[in-house]
């Protein structure tokens, strides 16, 4: 458990949060630029000092009352937006910089593991100056992992990279928590990264945490200032439930629903994460046996809210048997024609789902 109570005036806004984050997963601090998420991260690291604040990680007080543990005595790893490698050292010396300062008993993550998880073996003898942006960031991640932190803080580590580099490094970040077991707090303003990486989301706005919760629930809420438009959608977590070898399809089971999708070549039982965008979900009052849409899921309406364009509304659904939340985007006219209201039983017609991992 990470507990943080922090208040720090910062020019345009005042960071003012009281948070509890789980340590068994990836927590995303999500919000627009300038909402204070980086300041919050820096307070957790000890790079900023919010007087009177409180930061407790797994029962260890990093900041409490008169106690303020300096950065270099905190079991923290930080990955900045720019890799910030030491230019006077080669890649291996960069990765070993913090590791060699640990007492041998503190080295819970072997140096070789940090190197292997980030795939930087081929770079070890190189100078830092010749590396690509993606390579630099992977070295920075390995360097932070090698200090065996209790908490790994990542401040928009992909923001400075182009799409190709992002695609190269995202899978490495995804695996990190599973491989290392280290709690990760990930700062981002990109909903796609949050959907893909986060288990827990803190939505921030103007220095305050306006909502905090599991990714599936939080992204389906209609009462939050989430990014509207094309990105509206939910994240569902589940497992591969069955395979249909004849048609190259796989059934992905999430609480209260199952989706048939293109076979991702994963074994049955493999944990997966799905993204279902509101624009890919339409509604019907009855199942449509004559439709080519295979994913027809019974659900009931929980809430209806305005979308960005006045012609459309967003409908929040709950699949039967207390299952998962879904979002659907329909026209206001359809909502009226179907007489949609909280409690209405509907069928969610899901045209496509995106498998995130």
């Amino acid at each position, binding site marked *: 458990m990470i507990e943080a109570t922090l208040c720090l005036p910062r020019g345009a806004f005042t960071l003012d949060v009281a948070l509890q984050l789980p340590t068994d997963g990836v927590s995303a601090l999500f919000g627009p630029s300038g909402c204070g998420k980086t300041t919050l991260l820096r307070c957790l*690291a*000890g*790079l900023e000092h919010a007087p009177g604040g409180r930061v407790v990680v797994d029962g260890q007080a990093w900041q409490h009352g008169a106690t303020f543990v*300096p*950065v*270099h*005595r905190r079991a*923290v*790893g*930080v990955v*900045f937006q*720019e890799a*910030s490698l*030491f*230019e*006077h050292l080669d890649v291996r010396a960069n990765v070993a*910089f*913090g590791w060699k*300062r*640990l007492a041998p008993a503190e080295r819970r993550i072997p140096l070789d593991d940090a190197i292997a998880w980030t795939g930087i073996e081929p770079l070890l003898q190189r100078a830092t100056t010749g590396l690509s942006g993606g390579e630099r960031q992977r070295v920075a991640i390995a*360097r*932070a992992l090698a*200090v065996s932190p209790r908490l790994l803080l990542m401040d928009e580590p992909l923001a400075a990279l182009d799409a190709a580099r992002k695609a190269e490094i995202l899978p490495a970040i995804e695996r990190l928590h599973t491989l290392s077991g280290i709690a990760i707090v990930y700062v981002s303003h990109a909903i796609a990264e949050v959907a893909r990486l986060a288990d827990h989301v803190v939505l921030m706005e103007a220095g305050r945490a306006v909502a905090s919760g599991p990714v599936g629930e939080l992204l389906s809420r209609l009462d939050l200032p989430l990014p509207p438009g094309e990105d509206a959608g939910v994240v569902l977590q589940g497992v591969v439930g069955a395979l249909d070898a004849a048609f190259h399809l796989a059934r992905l089971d999430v609480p209260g629903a199952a989706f048939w999708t293109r076979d991702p070549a994963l074994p049955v039982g493999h944990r997966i994460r799905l993204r279902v965008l509101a624009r890919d979900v339409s509604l019907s009052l009855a199942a449509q046996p004559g439709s080519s849409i295979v994913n027809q899921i019974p659900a009931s309406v929980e809430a209806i809210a305005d979308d960005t364009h006045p012609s459309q509304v967003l409908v929040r659904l709950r699949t039967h048997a207390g299952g998962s939340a879904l979002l659907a985007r329909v026209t206001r006219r359809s909502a009226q024609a179907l007489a949609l209201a909280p409690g209405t039983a509907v069928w969610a017609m899901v045209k496509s789902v995106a498998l995130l991992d």
Partner: protein
Amino acid sequence: MDADWSADLQAVALTLKLASVVTLLLLVLGTPLAWWLAHTRSRWKAPLSALVALPLVLPPTVLGFYLLMLMGPHGLVGQATQALGIGLLPFTFTGLAIASMLYSMPFVVQPIQTAFEAIGARPLEAAATLRAGPWERFAHVALPLARRGVLTAAVLGFAHTVGEFGVVLMIGGNIPGATRVISTQLYSHVEALEYPAAHRLAALLLAFSFAVLLWVYRLRPRGALLAAGTPTA
């Protein structure tokens, strides 16, 4: 002629000794000062920066005059040194070294300060998150990253001390073996109308100074001395 040669060599040797001592002490004392100036938000930063930079614009004779007053028998420093049994500093090698340090200080402090400032906060923050304490951040990150600035500072501090004249005359006089350096020896040659001997020393200083600056510019292919934060005078 032989006497001339040996007097010249003595002046060259003394100059090198003075410049080495001054450069070494300035690196030791100037690096912490440059670090402080690069990182402080104190209101003393501006006055202290101006004080350090003063020798850039002040006629050396002004600096020399005040130092002479200060270190003389009626000056504060002079009375202190006398009370401590050290005697008076003007017209000694020690007095000359102290004066030279003040005179060459901006040439050492400013390149190092600029180099520290160019590093920025980020590498030091990264080092802190990698378990490096304040001293380790300075010694293993800041100093290695600022090494070009330190090298430039050492070379310019040395060269500038070799080239000084006004302060030497005021504080050191022109005592063979104690305070007679190349520039004052050259002055003596000219006063005695020994032009060939004067040519020899003048050419030596010219070649030395050019070589030093050539080396500095090679080290920094981009940008001028001034852009690199190095003072010109």
